[in-house]
């Protein structure tokens, strides 16, 4: 008898029926309507999702839902009726399924989309911390805590995000958070070798702030965290905009070679390609300077000396591409983070598979500190933007962590 089989059969008699049945999941969402994040994620727990060439139906059951807003097109009641769970008026009730004690084995917090105020830095004040805190309150009251997935950044505020991660350590429950970009397919399937020496790195992103710059920053971070010495945090950031971005490129503050390299992975150059289908070297031809009306550069200085840049280049391309110079590599290492089309957005199935892994094993497949650091980088960059684009020291971003040893890419 193999060891694993032995352990399973030996343990079986001690398991209560509640533990052998499906794990019970609560969904805490801002809104649940077609193509909102909550619908993308939540539905995969209801109808399954593809992974590894098979339609997965994990042994999980959604038992409760809390939705903060019910706009036109709300699907919460419809889903509850069809899939046999209840929509509760508060988060605590959702976690306790109407009773007095925690009655679920895992919590999915999807606080993206919905109508929330925007602050002076342009951050949408999604109540992720507030939702998370209410979950923690139930955990504390009950003396028991269960795994939590928090979609996207932990909070618009690093202080709040830090509290969230601290609570998970204090109460000893696993948390997974962040974007799909780190776990989607890459073109090519590039994973930087663990312990490599990264000399320079550049990410190209598109879309608005602060939803899409977060995705781009996290995509870059999941590459950089694999460098020699692991992650040691960020000492300063600066966000500049407009012509200053091009000037910084001329001065060598970011690498044009890496920009060419990142764009060489793009499938969506705009301008002349839209006009007649031609391939383009947007940098070599200078077209990029015409196409991008308001570029932004996010400069990130790490504690170990690495400097990395995110360029948000709306008007140049429509996809997310990364390039780095790695010591010993023959040329720039570059890849595209593939965002597959709506409505399937199959990349979210890659992320859901990681969430399911955590719900089933109580172990996060990759550290939440990645998302904590990126939440803080983004907040400080946006602060820099409203403070005359100044360079800001970030001693609070001394976030240390080690990357997962195993690649999290969808490779099977």
């Amino acid at each position: 008898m193999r060891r694993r089989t032995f352990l399973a059969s030996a343990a079986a008699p001690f398991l209560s029926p509640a533990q052998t049945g499906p794990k019970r999941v609560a969904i805490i969402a801002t809104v649940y309507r077609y193509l909102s994040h909550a619908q993308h994620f939540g539905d995969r727990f209801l109808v399954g999702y593809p992974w590894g060439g098979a339609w997965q139906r994990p042994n999980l059951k959604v038992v409760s839902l809390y939705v903060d807003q019910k706009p036109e097109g709300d699907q919460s009641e419809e889903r509850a009726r069809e899939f046999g769970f209840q929509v509760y008026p508060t988060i605590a009730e959702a976690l306790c399924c109407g009773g007095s004690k925690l009655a679920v084995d895992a919590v999915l917090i999807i606080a993206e989309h919905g109508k929330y105020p925007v602050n002076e830095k342009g951050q949408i004040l999604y109540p992720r911390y507030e939702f998370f805190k209410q979950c923690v309150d139930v955990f504390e009251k009950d003396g028991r805590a269960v795994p939590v997935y928090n979609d996207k950044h932990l909070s618009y505020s690093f202080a709040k995000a830090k509290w969230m991660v601290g609570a998970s350590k204090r109460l000893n429950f696993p948390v997974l958070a962040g974007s799909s970009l780190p776990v989607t397919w890459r073109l090519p399937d590039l994973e930087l070798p663990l312990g490599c020496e990264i000399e320079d790195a550049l990410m190209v992103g598109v879309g608005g702030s602060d939803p899409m710059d977060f995705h781009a920053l996290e995509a870059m971070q999941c590459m950089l965290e694999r460098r020699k010495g692991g992650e040691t945090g960020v000492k300063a950031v600066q966000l500049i905009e407009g012509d200053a971005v091009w000037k910084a490129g001329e001065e060598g503050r970011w690498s044009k070679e890496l920009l060419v390299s990142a764009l060489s992975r793009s499938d969506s150059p705009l301008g002349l390609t839209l006009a007649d289908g031609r391939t383009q070297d947007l940098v070599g031809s200078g077209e990029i300077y015409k196409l991008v009306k308001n570029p932004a550069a996010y400069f990130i200085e790490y504690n170990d000396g690495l400097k990395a840049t995110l360029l948000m280049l709306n008007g140049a391309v429509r996809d997310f591409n990364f390039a780095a110079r790695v010591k010993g590599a023959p040329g720039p290492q570059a890849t595209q983070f593939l965002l597959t089309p709506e409505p399937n957005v199959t990349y979210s199935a890659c992320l859901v598979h990681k969430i399911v892994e955590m719900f089933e094993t109580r172990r996060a497949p990759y550290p939440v500190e990645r998302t904590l650091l990126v939440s803080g980088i983004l907040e400080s960059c946006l602060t820099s933007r409203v403070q005359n684009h100044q360079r800001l020291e970030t001693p609070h971003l001394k976030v240390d962590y080690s990357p997962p040893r195993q690649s999290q890419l969808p490779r099977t």
Partner: protein
Amino acid sequence: MKIAAVVTVVHKYSHAQHFIDRFLEGYGWNGVHHKPPMDLVALYVDQTPPGDLSRDRAARFPTLKIYPTIAEALTLGGSSLAVDGVLLIGEHGDYKYNEKHQHLYPRYEMFQQIVKVFQTSGRSVPVFNDKHLSWNWEWAKEMYDTSRKMGFAFMAGSSLPVTWRTPSLEMPLGARVSEALCAGYGGVDSYDFHALETIQCMVERRRGGETGVKWVEAYRGDRFWEALRNGVWPKDLMEAALCRSHTLTPARKGFNHIFPTFDDMRRIMRDPVAYRYEHNDGLKCTMLLMNGLVQDFNFAARIAGQPRIFSTQMYLPMPPARTTLANFFSPLVNNIEKMFLTGKPTYPVERTLLTTGLTAAGVESLFQNQTRYETPHLAVKYQAPKESTYWRT
């Protein structure tokens, strides 16, 4: 090194535009903007309808000249062959259809004119033929035989075998494959060819190599639905392939990604087509055009000794809905460059000879009321290259 292109039509997103622009403008490759180390100097364009881009390209690239005949393009207006490689891109353009709904692209006719120059010059150079060799099997076979007789490097086919895969998986060389399937989309005598190349570039790596195909049977209309219900092709392989799709039409309103039931498929798919065929060594394959249900090409196979079904998607960044560049042409152009530089094809043209014959056989079976079409002429034998040639870097 000088290259000539012989093409049907150059307009935005025509195949010729994708190829020509990659030679003229360069393209993203290995993390740089790569310029092919050769000059596209001559172009023959068969049709120049409104929207023609050939004249714009020639005006912007003075090294490129348009010639009125294929012979002049290959001789650069002189009397003998003056280029080192030829691109034959006979896709798109206004050409007739025959009664079997085959699109009568003049690939064979263009090829004949190319080899005529080779013959009169007493010298031949590598040729790449885009897509299937011809809609007509006899002509395709003649093209292949001519290339062998005259001894020039000849490559052909689709970009599906060389594009990205999600996930990035290769069929293990020497695998014992018993069943293979592609869930794709598109029309007969067009995208069926891409789906067949998708299957063939994988199954050619099986134990014993390629042995050819003995029969092909097509399914359409009621017969398709009956075959689907009765499991004429393996349901588990079809499901695995659909689980690799990025474009599965949601079976229910309000859901973004939900697996379809048989009734859902019946409602969603429009005019689906299947080609079921058996190789001489017993391997059975199924090519599915699942129009309305998916818009990508997904492969699945059963391999002896592997508990799980092997599956992946041959990923096409497809404009205009999802991208602006059809970058699956980049690995194809890169393989062509290698052939032009070395005089050796990077993968065997026999693959495309066989898929050309399979496409024609599928069309023939459809035309003959979906009866089984015996294909003793498709005893095409070859060995797959050991080295993978799909896009991974």
